[in-house]
């Protein structure tokens, strides 16, 4: 195979192999991710070059097939948890499994009691149930305090009644909810003894494990096509409504507070602030994702800028052939592209630091030290906002840096942009998050 960029590679003044380790974070992380990346790339079962020409239904079904194939390969190869998560990462196709592993399982781990975890985690870990994270509602988005879904305790039957009192209380957007998930962690206002105790999490079965039909009182479906040809259209983002659906009392996630058989609301001695740890966890992943998405776009634009030639003073290449100037040699191209390359590295390192911050924060919270929580909360909110906005803008810039060809689906850039840009609004709209940061700064 001829390497058209060999000349460029020969000019490097540093050890690329060592830089790969810096980028990966450690030699171990590099070795594992590299092995799994190659495994995925060489397996025709993970082919994705036809995504842009598939219809919505075909795309969705293809994602289902791949998710099942991923599970099969994980078991066949007896992959560790770390290797499995790299495998899902490199398959690079949004499917229900992304939410199941990324939010449903962590929500159980973070909010359920030991006893509840013993019951639900084996089912989730073996994918005998498939879960999603149903917080956002049609009318209120990420404003958690505005959620309208209710969970009213019925002392007579020892059950909670989950109900959607209005159209705007319909759960809206959870990935995997529309057609796949059998269970959901549903966030609802807890009402017991006539008193509203605010939003709490409940584990609710929404589809039969026998025939996959929605259970009585449950209305569930897909919210429709989203921006871009592929991207988020491979996943079934769903709506969900409840008409007085009953669940056993012990399906309230009771790590930090519980309702007794007598309907009494009791707070446990586990600090409530631990729940904020989950938010910090999710946001540090989003920051890491921002560096990955931006680096992919930068990689495409940089390589193509070295391939593409345009105008410029006539000169000869290494074979004495008259050629135009490589686009990458134009200062205007450099001034747009190189800061994005630098940003990709910057976001990578700040993401690495956030990972450390999360571990440090959890240790402090477990020791009942809440002193750093407001600062950590503001800092992760701000960095999520800053990096996702910059990465989304950066991907768009990269596609323009590739000229007209960047607009082709085969450039990979339109789909990358469509898949990444929602990060600017999920887990907190970026501008709202910046206002939270500024409130913290003013207080400081």
């Amino acid at each position, binding site marked *: 195979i001829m390497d058209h960029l060999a000349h460029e590679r020969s000019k490097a003044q540093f050890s690329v192999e060592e*830089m790969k380790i810096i980028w990966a974070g450690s030699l171990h992380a590099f070795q594992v991710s590299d092995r799994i990346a190659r495994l995925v790339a060489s397996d025709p079962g993970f082919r994705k070059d036809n995504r842009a020409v598939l219809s919505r239904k075909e795309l969705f079904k293809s994602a289902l097939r791949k998710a099942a194939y991923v599970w099969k390969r994980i078991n066949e190869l007896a992959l560790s948890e770390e290797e499995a998560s790299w495998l899902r990462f490199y398959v690079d196709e949004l499917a229900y499994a992304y939410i199941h592993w990324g939010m449903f399982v962590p929500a159980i781990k973070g909010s359920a009691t030991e006893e509840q975890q013993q019951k639900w985690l084996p089912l989730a870990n073996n994918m005998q149930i498939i879960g999603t994270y149903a917080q956002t509602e049609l009318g209120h988005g990420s404003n958690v305090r505005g959620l309208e879904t209710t969970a009213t305790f019925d002392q007579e039957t020892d059950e909670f009644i989950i109900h959607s009192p209005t159209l705007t209380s319909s759960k809206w957007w959870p990935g995997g909810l529309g057609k796949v998930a059998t269970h959901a962690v549903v966030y609802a206002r807890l009402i017991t003894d006539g008193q509203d105790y605010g939003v709490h999490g409940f584990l609710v079965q929404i589809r039969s494990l026998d025939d996959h039909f929605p259970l009585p009182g449950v209305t569930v479906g897909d919210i429709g096509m989203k921006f871009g040809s592929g991207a988020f259209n491979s996943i079934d983002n769903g709506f969900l409504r409840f008409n007085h659906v009953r669940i056993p009392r012990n399906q309230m996630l009771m790590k930090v507070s519980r309702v007794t058989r007598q309907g009494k609301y009791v707070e446990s001695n586990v600090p409530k602030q631990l729940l904020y740890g989950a938010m910090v966890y999710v946001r540090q992943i989003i920051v890491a994702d921002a560096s990955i998405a931006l680096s992919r776009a930068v990689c495409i634009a940089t390589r193509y800028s070295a391939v593409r030639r345009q105008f410029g003073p006539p000169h000869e290449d290494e074979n004495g052939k008259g050629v135009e100037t490589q686009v990458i040699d134009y200062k205007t191209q450099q001034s747009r592209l190189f800061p994005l390359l630098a940003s990709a590295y910057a976001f990578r390192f700040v993401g690495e630091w956030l990972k450390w911050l999360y571990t440090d924060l959890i240790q402090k919270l477990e020791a009942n030290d809440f002193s750093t929580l407001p600062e950590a909360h503001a800092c992760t909110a701000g960095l999520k906002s800053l990096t996702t906005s910059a990465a989304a803008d950066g991907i768009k810039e990269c596609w323009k840096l590739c000229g007209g060809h960047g607009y082709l689906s085969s450039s990979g850039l339109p789909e990358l942009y469509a898949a990444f840009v929602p990060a600017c609004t999920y887990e907190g709209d970026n501008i709202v998050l910046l206002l939270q940061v500024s409130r913290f700064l003013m207080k400081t």
Partner: protein
Amino acid sequence: ISQLQTGKKPIGTTAYMAHVEHLIQCRCTVQKAEDWLNPSVILEAFEARAIRLSVACAENLTKFATPLQGFSELSPDLVEAAVAHCQLIVVSKFIEKLQQNIEGNGVKQQLETLCNIYCLNLIHKHLGDFLSTGSISPKQASLASDQLRSRYSKLRSNVIALVDAFNYTDHFLGSVLGRYDGNVYPKLYEEAWKDPLNDSIVPDGYHEYIQPLLKQ
């Protein structure tokens, strides 16, 4: 900002605010373009800009009847103050990374160049903030732009290797333009043939809609 007067020490990423008195008054020491390569100079410029924007917001907030009204009216300024604070975090973490033990031939030098480009480009993009807060002077802004341009030249020969270091397979990248081997044009042509519109030489709809027009 309001708590700084009480003597309570800011922590973590706000620790720089403890030096408010210095940061409000300090003058950037850059005299020539090379001075912009000094990490402490860069850091102080970002800290000065961040705290001056925050203090300005805090002062303006006191002019409103209620904090709520102030927050609402000043929200665009508050967002800018928050952005400045967050950019400072990223800049400081990049600089911290460079202070760690980094192995490999030439690796640290490349990261230093990237760090300089990241910081100087932010200064260039947010010149309004840096100048209006007096964190740097117009002459220093011009020197920053000179240094940024020179960093681009320094980086140029390494950029392909720097993106290779991401270690993305062609499968993961999913891009004809970004192929590792750079063999772009033949592959773009090959991809074009795979489009469903090219399944037939004469398109569906020709007989219904095109032929009647041509025959009229």
